[in-house]
């Protein structure tokens, strides 16, 4: 071991197929504006959604996919207006159901890149069931969960990620609900890809989006996003350099987890979990190396992100290879077809038939065609 923090590269198992391998590509050069629809964007001034939209618009050309083979499906909420602003196929559906709708689309259309855009209320409250099931089934979809920890479109009620005690229009004496930690929830559902980014960090967000898109399976990307109207400055401590320095932990697979100025903070093991310690006081081999395939480590990392934002972990917390539901479902259909798809007449007649002619039964055709 050297005096620097050791690097223990862990190879990620490589799937046979990448997330977008069945989606047709184009040789044409694409630009961000090619993905801008003619719809006027109608989020509030200062909304974090603008930054995310800009990142996604500028990221999509990088994929080199035919634009018509990209679909964004959303639910209800401010973030769910997202598809209207992209010149791809899109569906602005109903509250919480986007993962279910995307499931049917992904299973029947392997040639599409299917994205879900949702928010903390849409995905974790009314649509919580669909979210966890899409993750556990490992549908080949990419879910962007905009978390602003408030209900914006209904004007300021607390959300399932709001801090305990939060005073809102519906909780004048403070919220009583223990909030969800979306990354922990996704890991509990055994999601195969979980990442997190901050709306204003275009570089970090783009990096996570890149890996999420390349992942074959369900990718959940939680995006901390500011609602300037009803929850202004909610994530400011992660943006202001003097405060973010000791809070923002960015992880990369195979790299030791240090952060802050000159990596002066390190993540170390503590009991079954993790803790933060000054790097100078930690033996280099005790600095945790991020392994995105280690579920327990990923979960422990998710628990470092608390409601008070003392720490917040960004990057790709987990990525593992597992067959996707849609690939397996198509494989079953294909095998059945290859095995000799049945003939419609054969199917509807079944095996026990009898024939009537001129009012008389002409003997029945029995099972397996044996007359009796």
């Amino acid at each position, binding site marked *: 071991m050297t005096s620097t923090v050791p690097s223990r590269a862990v190879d990620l198992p490589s799937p046979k197929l990448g997330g977008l391998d069945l989606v047709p590509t184009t040789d044409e050069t694409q630009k961000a504006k090619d993905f801008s629809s003619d719809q006027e964007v109608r989020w509030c001034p200062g909304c974090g959604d603008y930054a995310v939209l800009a990142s996604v618009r500028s990221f999509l050309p990088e994929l080199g996919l035919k634009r018509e083979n990209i679909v964004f499906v959303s639910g209800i909420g401010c973030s769910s207006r997202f598809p209207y602003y992209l010149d791809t196929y899109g569906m602005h559906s109903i509250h919480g159901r986007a993962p279910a709708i995307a499931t049917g689309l992904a299973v*029947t259309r392997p040639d599409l890149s299917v994205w879900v855009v949702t928010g903390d209320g849409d995905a974790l409250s009314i649509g919580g069931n669909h979210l966890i099931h899409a993750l556990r089934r490992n549908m080949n979809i990419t879910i962007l969960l905009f978390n602003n920890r408030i209900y914006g479109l209904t004007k300021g009620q607390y959300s399932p990620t709001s801090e305990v005690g939060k005073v809102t229009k519906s909780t004048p004496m403070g919220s009583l609900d223990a909030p969800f930690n979306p990354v922990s929830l996704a890991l509990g559902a055994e999601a195969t890809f979980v990442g997190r980014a901050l709306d204003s960090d275009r570089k970090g967000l783009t990096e996570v989006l890149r890996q999420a898109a390349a992942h074959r399976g369900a990718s959940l990307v939680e995006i901390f996003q500011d609602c300037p109207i009803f929850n202004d400055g909610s994530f400011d401590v992660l943006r202001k350099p003097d405060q973010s320095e000791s809070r923002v932990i960015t992880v990369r697979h195979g790299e030791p987890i240090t952060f802050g100025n000159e990596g002066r903070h390190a993540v170390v093991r503590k009991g079954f979990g993790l803790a933060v310690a000054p790097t100078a006081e930690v033996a280099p081999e005790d600095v945790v190396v991020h392994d995105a395939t280690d579920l327990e480590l990923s979960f422990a990392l998710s628990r470092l992100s608390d409601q008070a934002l003392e720490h917040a972990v960004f990057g790709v917390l987990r990525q593992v290879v597992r067959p996707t539901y849609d690939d397996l479902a198509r494989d079953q259909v294909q095998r059945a077809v290859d095995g000799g798809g049945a003939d419609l007449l054969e199917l509807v007649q079944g095996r026990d038939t009898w024939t009537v002619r001129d009012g008389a039964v002409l003997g029945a055709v029995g099972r397996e065609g044996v007359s009796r």
Partner: protein
Amino acid sequence: MSTDTEVGAELPDHLVAHGEIRQTEVKQTHRVVIRFAGDSGDGMQLTGDRFTSEAAAFGNDLATLPNFPAEIRAPAGTLPGVSSFQLHFADYDILTPGDRPDVLVAMNPAALKSNLPDLPHGGVLIVNTDEFTKRNLGKVGYDSNPLEDDSLAPYQVHQVAMATLTRTALEPTGMSKKDAERAKNMFALGLLSWMYHRGTEGTEAFLREKFAKKPELAEANILAFRTGWNYGETTESFAVTYEVAPAALPGGTYRQITGNLALAYGVVAAGQLSELPVFLGTYPITPASDVLHELSKHKGMGVTTFQAEDEIAGIGAALGASFGGALGVTSTSGPGVALKSETIGLAVALELPLLILDVQRGGPSTGLPTKTEQADLLQAMFGRNGEAPVPIVAPASPSECFDAAIQAARIALTYRTPVFVLSDGSIANGSEPWNVPDVESLPDMSVEFATEANAPDGSGEFWPYLRDDDTLARPWAVPGTPGLEHRIGGLEKADGRGSISYDPDNHDRMVRLRRAKIDGIEVPDITVDDPSGEAEVLVLGWGSTFGPIGAACRRVRAAGLQVAQAHLRNLNPLPDNLGEVLGRYRRVVVPEMNLGQLAMLLRAKYLVDARSYTKVAGLPFGAEELAGVLTDAVKGDLPA
């Protein structure tokens, strides 16, 4: 005595025969109703199904009524645990499973107690005596053993120790007593097969296939079956056997089919005819789950089934598949429809094809999961927020479920709309012979996806809500089509362009356009069956009441009275000529297994004094009961 005839024919001969003749006599009879009744674990449904297959293969017309509890295994020997299967078979075309049995097979005291009230005096009663122990009698509140007192005197009783006989016969197999006795249902089937001159090969082949992986069980069941058969032949307790000749049905190839099976086949056929992949997104629910089970077997015909996490996800996934260019289908029952309502509304707004197969059951709430009812009509018509019209197709019999699924798919694909198929528990589980259609004769349902920009202003844009002049359907532009990228959603859209619009006039126009599109769907005219042409009373039904209403009409006409019958297969939109038909009759009677939902719609739309006759007992109407209602109506005494 039973009055359960449908053509005014004489009663089945054996009802007046008594077991005094020593030699087995063979009697011809036109029709028989047999009811097998036992404990939920006794295999009564299997026994009934098997006898039905034999009757079908023999060429009889038939209709069946399975009736079982929602509990999988209610406590053994109790009244709530009784499961029964009624089969009506005949040498002519019949319409119902029969009001009452001619022959009741009771496997235990509970089955006897709960079914005996339906057996007419003089009817044949075959009882498995082994279960008539003091304990079992006590469970169902018999103070004394009915086999020993004179309470069964009005019936032709055959006391058979079925469990003992089966166990004894199976002794050489080395099976345990308990396992051997489980085959007593096959003993009962053997006995009845002998009584009605049914072949044995079919059942034996069936058992060998069913227990292919456990040949010793197959042989044990076959042995029990033969023991029952031989018991009838060798003992002298059965003096008469009966023959029911094949029915002279219209020419063709026939098979026996249940409504759920026909519904599943209809969906498969719709996929083939439209050349679209079928995607079923669904969640298990009684009595619709068999549609999922069946469709899951037909992946080889391009059917993908997805058992979702809930009802909402089931229909959501189906709608997602439709957006992608598949034929999206969801199957459910009333409680599931309630959960799916919001997504159905979204499908109305998106104007995408979608099939909603609702196999109705007793409600409200969980209601009566295994019993039938047709009380989802208004839910299907109106059960959504806003003005959200949805076409409704309702099959009238098990085999009609096939045509209903195809018609519903054709409407969905042509008009880009969700469509309801309203089946119900009685036709879903009931079976009848089906004249299998010539596949070549089925309609071509190929669809055209949009491929090019369509803006009337020549801008080269694609307008997703520009409608077809004829059908008012919008183009179906599926993802992957270059140049037609567009966004759709639940928010109101601008007429034509399809972008979000909050404009008041536009909303008013779009609401009316969506309604006009559904109102304009072409459905066949309703036909009236009025043999004399002189009827003044019209009985109008929909769905599974077709059989009992038809049987009731036969009775009324056999009594010399005139009644006209018409049946609705399309409930939204209603046939164009319905108003005119209703206007032809002085009186209109509408029997429904709800509290008058169709009658309410008719009164509202046509200002006609339609009179409801309603029953929500979880069972189909009896023909006798409806005949009484119609007779009263003809004589001027209308239902309130």
